[in-house]
């Protein structure tokens, strides 16, 4: 790891802590978050030249607080007057912790910050962008690059999100017990969206997008550290690790997608598999069952089989049946149908797929004909399978998936 990478990691680690200190003193996500970004920028330019300060966290808090005071004083807007008063009452010295002082509130601060950024008043895309900037410490330009939009598109998305948080009257605090589960679900969903955005990205020019998986795992680890007893937090972390373990084998040298059954299992990351499997096993034995734990358990069964043929499909089928009951959705039905086909024959899987035919959520979706084609291929109905692979290829908006589906169709030719 290079010096600049180490510095980047340190700054991103400190970003939510510094923001937490400012928010506790001042409130006002917009102002505080801008001030922290300026302090991070100052650190990124000054530290390499002048050396690391004795207490980097205090340095950042002091600089961010000064920026906040400057910002507040320089603006005349009515809504900022209260903040000005508050800032004048609290001199910089009061904001900075004593050298070496480790605030016990850091973990809760990161947690409260995640809840704030994933507030229900925001759309998922805004929650994702705000989380990456405020908790992840990424700049707007970095978030924009990761999501393949211009900075001019991402900047209003983030400022609109901050305005929404303010107008919703959201406080920098942990949600009340009756809201806890729903709010935590939103946080987990956002972290999973970030992970998938990175995981499904190609390699090469999209490398900075792939960094999103590492960022999602880092943030989920922080969350798991704050809430070690929550089974779904552990389940999501396990699911990410078990999925990421397959990344080295998921694309061929030419960038083509390699299906799970054909991946070179020797290239899977054994350390990630071990950690993920241990996490999900511990969570399932101690916490109430939830969808992320079930998906992680299924992912673990897939990656623990030495060969594709050794996969414990019966166990996977049972887990999908439970998942269909506690968190039904068409994607679960698709995967359930594959597991049914692998244990009770392709016809039984195709029967289950038929239950999705009238589902408006699957109209135009490529995954339904893709799975149907796969099961028809297993059943030896090659002509029908070919048609459905082609239909799926026509419907997908993913270039690598289209290429893969067309290759499957061609393989059945003659």
């Amino acid at each position, binding site marked *: 790891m290079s010096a600049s990478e180490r510095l980047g990691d340190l700054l991103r680690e400190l970003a939510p802590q510094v923001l937490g200190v400012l928010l506790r003193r001042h409130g006002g996500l917009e102002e505080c978050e801008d001030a922290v970004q300026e302090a991070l920028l100052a650190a990124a330019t000054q530290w390499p030249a002048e050396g690391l300060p004795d207490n980097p966290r205090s340095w950042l808090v002091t600089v961010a607080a000064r920026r906040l005071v400057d910002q507040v004083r320089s603006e005349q807007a009515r809504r900022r007057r209260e903040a000005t008063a508050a800032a004048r009452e609290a001199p910089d010295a009061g904001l900075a912790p004593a050298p070496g002082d480790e605030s016990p509130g850091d973990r809760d601060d990161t947690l409260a910050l995640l809840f704030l950024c994933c507030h229900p008043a925001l*759309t*998922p*895309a*805004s929650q994702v*962008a705000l989380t990456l900037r405020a908790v992840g410490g990424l700049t707007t330009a970095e978030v924009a690059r990761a*999501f*393949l*939009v*211009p900075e001019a*598109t*991402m*900047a*209003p*998305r*983030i400022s*609109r999100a901050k305005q929404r948080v303010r107008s919703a009257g959201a406080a920098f605090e942990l949600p009340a017990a009756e809201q806890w589960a729903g709010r935590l679900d939103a946080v987990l969903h956002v972290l999973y969206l970030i992970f998938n*955005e990175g*995981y*499904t*990205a*190609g390699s090469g020019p*999209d490398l900075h997008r792939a960094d999103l998986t590492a960022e999602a795992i880092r943030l989920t680890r922080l969350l798991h550290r704050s809430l070690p007893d929550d089974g779904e937090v552990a389940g999501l972390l396990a699911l990410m690790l078990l999925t990421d373990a397959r990344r080295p084998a*998921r*694309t061929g040298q030419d960038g083509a*997608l*390699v*299906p*799970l059954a054909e*991946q070179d299992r020797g290239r899977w990351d054994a350390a990630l598999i071990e950690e993920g499997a241990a996490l999900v096993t511990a969570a399932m034995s101690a916490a109430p069952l939830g969808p992320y734990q079930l998906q992680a358990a299924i992912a673990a069964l897939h990656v623990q089989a030495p060969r594709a043929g050794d996969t414990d499909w019966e166990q996977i089928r049972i887990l999908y049946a439970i998942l269909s009951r506690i968190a039904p959705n068409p994607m679960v039905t698709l995967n359930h149908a594959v597991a049914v086909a692998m244990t009770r024959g392709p016809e039984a899987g195709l029967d289950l797929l038929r239950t999705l035919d009238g589902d408006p959520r699957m109209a135009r979706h490529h995954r339904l004909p*893709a799975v149907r084609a*796969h099961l028809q291929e297993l059943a030896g109905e090659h002509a029908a399978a070919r048609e459905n692979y082609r239909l799926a290829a026509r419907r997908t*908006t*993913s*270039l*690598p*998936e*289209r290429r*893969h589906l067309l290759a499957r169709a061609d393989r059945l030719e003659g």
Partner: protein
Amino acid sequence: MKFLLSLYLEPSALPGEGLDHEEFLAAAGPSGELVGGHVLADPSVGAVTRVRGGAVTVTEGPYLTSADQVACQYVVDCESRERAVELAVLLAAGQAGGVEVRPLMNASGMEM
């Protein structure tokens, strides 16, 4: 998801004439959904190139000769197809033509 919204108007409409996209821009801009856009010049000043068996032909004017022509296009990055259609309705409001909503291909993919 990214979508291309193309506003089609009759060929007789002058380029950029009477386009009122204030409402669309007010919806897609501040929300961070607008990726880019442009108004097209009249199809009569464009050209179409074709290569057939190595032979190049260049013809003056539009690719489509009879149907309505694209007058302007925007790329938006939004949550869902439903949201893209919602934005397209704002774009089509007050126009005689229609707006086509087309998802864009992307390079991401999930192995199956």
